[in-house]
């Protein structure tokens, strides 16, 4: 959830309410501390109320998960739920701390509960923070962005397009004897055109476009291009950064393709340019995957720990009341 910008007017009431409630609770806590001469614990008047409210907030926060399972129910917009999730979760932090005697507590269960709560809050704040800048950064740095789950599929598609282009326009390597490099050029050349993916920039906005390239004839002297495709480009397009290819580095890629361009006929430049662009898109997919990990990886901590927090909270409440 992005805070500020056009939605600032929606966040502001939450922020004001959260700060006011936090200050009021802290005021009550301070007053009770001054009256008692010791930090009020969970069974004090203020500490107990803070605990009840914080516990209720935790339960509400946990409801976000089932809420997403029943999107069709009219229970408020997902944005409203997420906004409440974020701001109430932040409010729960001071309340829980006051309930926990500002962490001057004992008992392993209490410590585990507190540690889980803090970890959940910290991971949530981290998640909120990365959501503030990663999406914008991704919009700028990954114009070729695709659906994360389709990255491999799209990359394979690009690889097939490039291979069709290479087979149709580049000279076969005499040293080739079938295998991957040989392939079925005849099948590849059945058509007289190839559909390839390109990038276009229009009025400052970049985006992918599909291009159709006419294939007329084999360009002599392009065996090196074909060899580089099968040796370097294709493994990288299919495996991405995980393939260990040197093309994962933009600088290396520029250098390799420049050398290839120098050693190839001028007519092959268009093929080489396309291969370089395809590798560039693949690098963007790599970056997108990495940013996607940052953008959603915190959930690997936040959600499971929230589940554990819910379980321990369900134990803590009756036990605390039983031995009040």
């Amino acid at each position, binding site marked *: 959830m992005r805070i500020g910008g056009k939605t600032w007017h929606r966040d502001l009431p939450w922020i004001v309410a959260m700060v006011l409630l936090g200050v009021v609770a802290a005021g009550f806590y301070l007053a009770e501390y001054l009256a008692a001469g010791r930090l009020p614990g969970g069974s004090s008047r203020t500490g107990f109320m803070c605990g009840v409210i914080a516990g209720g907030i935790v339960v509400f926060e946990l409801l976000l998960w089932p809420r997403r399972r029943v999107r069709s129910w009219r229970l408020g917009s997902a944005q409203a739920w997420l906004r409440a999730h974020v701001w109430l979760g932040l409010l729960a932090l001071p309340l829980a701390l006051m309930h926990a005697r500002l962490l001057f507590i004992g008992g392993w269960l209490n410590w585990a509960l507190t540690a889980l709560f803090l970890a959940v809050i910290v991971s949530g704040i981290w998640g909120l923070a990365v959501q503030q800048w990663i999406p914008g950064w991704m919009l700028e740095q990954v114009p070729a962005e695709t659906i994360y789950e389709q990255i491999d*599929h799209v990359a394979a598609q690009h690889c097939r397009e490039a291979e069709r282009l290479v087979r149709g326009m580049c000279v076969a390597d005499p040293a080739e004897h079938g295998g991957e490099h040989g392939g079925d050029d005849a099948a590849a050349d059945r058509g007289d055109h190839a559909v390839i993916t390109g990038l276009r920039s229009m009025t400052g906005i970049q985006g992918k476009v599909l291009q159709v*390239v006419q294939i007329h004839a084999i360009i002599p002297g392009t065996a090196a291009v074909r060899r580089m495709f099968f040796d370097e480009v294709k493994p990288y397009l299919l495996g991405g950064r995980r393939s260990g290819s040197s093309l994962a580095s933009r600088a290396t890629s520029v250098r390799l393709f420049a050398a290839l361009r120098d050693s190839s006929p001028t007519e092959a430049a268009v093929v080489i340019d396309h291969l370089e662009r395809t590798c560039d898109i693949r690098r963007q997919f790599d970056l997108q995957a990495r940013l996607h990990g940052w953008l959603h990886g915190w959930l690997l901590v936040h959600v499971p720990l929230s589940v*554990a927090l819910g379980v321990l909270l369900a134990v803590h409440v009756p036990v605390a009341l039983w031995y009040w």
Partner: protein
Amino acid sequence: MAGPDFSPSTAPETSRGHASRIDRSYYTRTAPLLRGRRWLMFLAFVAALGWSAWALTDKSRQLAPGAVVAAHATWENDCQACHVPLSPIREGGWQEQVIAGSATHSAKCEKCHALASHSLRQVPAEVGSCSSCHDDHRGREADIRRVADTTCTTCHGDISAHSIAAAGEPTPVLPSVTRFDADHHPPFQSLATDPGRVKFSHGRHLRAGLTLSAGGGADKVAWTYDRLPAADRARYLPAGVSETDLVQLDCAACHQFAPDLPLDVSLRDLRPVSALLAGRAPGAIALPVEFERHCSACHQLPADASATATAATLAAAGTAADTSADASATATAATLAAAGTAAALSAGAPSQLPHGLDAGTIRRYLETRAVAALHAPPEGAIPEERRPLPVAHVPEPPRDAASLDEIRAGVDARRLLVRGVCEKCHQVDPVTLAAEGSLVAALAGDRAPQEGWFGVGPSGIKVLWLEKARFDHSAHRSWSCRECHAGAYPPALPPADILASSPLDHGQVLIAGKESCLGCHAPRQRDAASGREFGGARFDCVECHGYHGHGHLSPLPVAP
């Protein structure tokens, strides 16, 4: 050769071709991140359940906020030894409004801790449960008796609003206390007056030779160690000091603490103070000063003229017992001498009057002495000093009128003598005794009450001066006695000036007030003028005060 046309083309692209560019089934597959998240959720759920199960089987470490104090360690894992399920253990007002339970909890505490109430003046509805003040689960070594000041100042901060009048008493007007300092704590009320009735001069007793002028001189003959009875000499004579040196007493000569007692002190001697010593640290309080232990080495109690004559002889030799500080004693000796009764009274064996007798016993004792003076000691009689009681042996008295007159004269003379001896240190009160119990009255058949007798009331010397507080002398042993008892030391005045004023100090409280405490028992701070740092010792309420046991209204015990 025609080059390829790489410009965008309108060449036909089939729908199937377009469709193949999209993996339409991607949403049916779970992304690795989501798959991992679900696994972790499952693991977290299982781990949390496992931890919860562990918590319920290891309550002391998992559920309790801390270990209970060592005295309660037996019930470490038995929560319900103290707790009542679903009821608050701490009386805190608001919990009680939800669920009542603190009374039940206190009942569990009181199974072992039957303590007196705090005060008869406290408002019953404001009396909290045990746990409202005493927090357990703060570790084995925690002192749960050391409660926060606010547990006291909740009421004592405005004590008038939190106290009720006892039956028949007006509403008490009590000073409020919010903390221990110069402004928020009243002066020690126990030190307002000294109820002591024993005439005494600390200053004289702390001077060398026990005189007001160095080396004796016109004041008195100075005491030297060789004048003390042999049995007491070793006790008073410091190592390396000659027996002919002047006696120099110090505070410990009379004010003894339990660890300082000589080994020959019997349990019987300790019994009267055992109640005071109970529950206190060794050496916390000074034991009561006793005549036999602390005074008798110098102060003898002659019961008849033979002892007086001995004293007079000694006085003539310049070594008399110190009896002249009180004029009545001198007058008594002079009266006896003028009456010429000394020779008559000297027939009996020299005797020391036991200390601490009441008026009736004194009369009986003196009558017995007078009767005994008419008789030679019977054959086989038990020496007086070995008799268990002073009146154990009474010889058959003569009943003729002359003998009765002689007995009466002997009693009267002894009464004057003994009264003078008593008045040296005590304030004596005239007493009229009934005829019953009088040996002479029985012989003469007289049933009229006898006037002219006297009694010595209680000494009034406090054993515990700070009645509502606790002071531990042993904890302050590194300080000089003078720090808190400066008034007990001889004044730095010329002897003439000292003699001009009364040296007696039994009407003065020789214990410094709270100002002497505040030098240490205050927050650590620096004196702006001198730059000296002071304070730092604890100054919370329970450092000096206890809550339980002050509910009684009877006075604290005093020495007889």
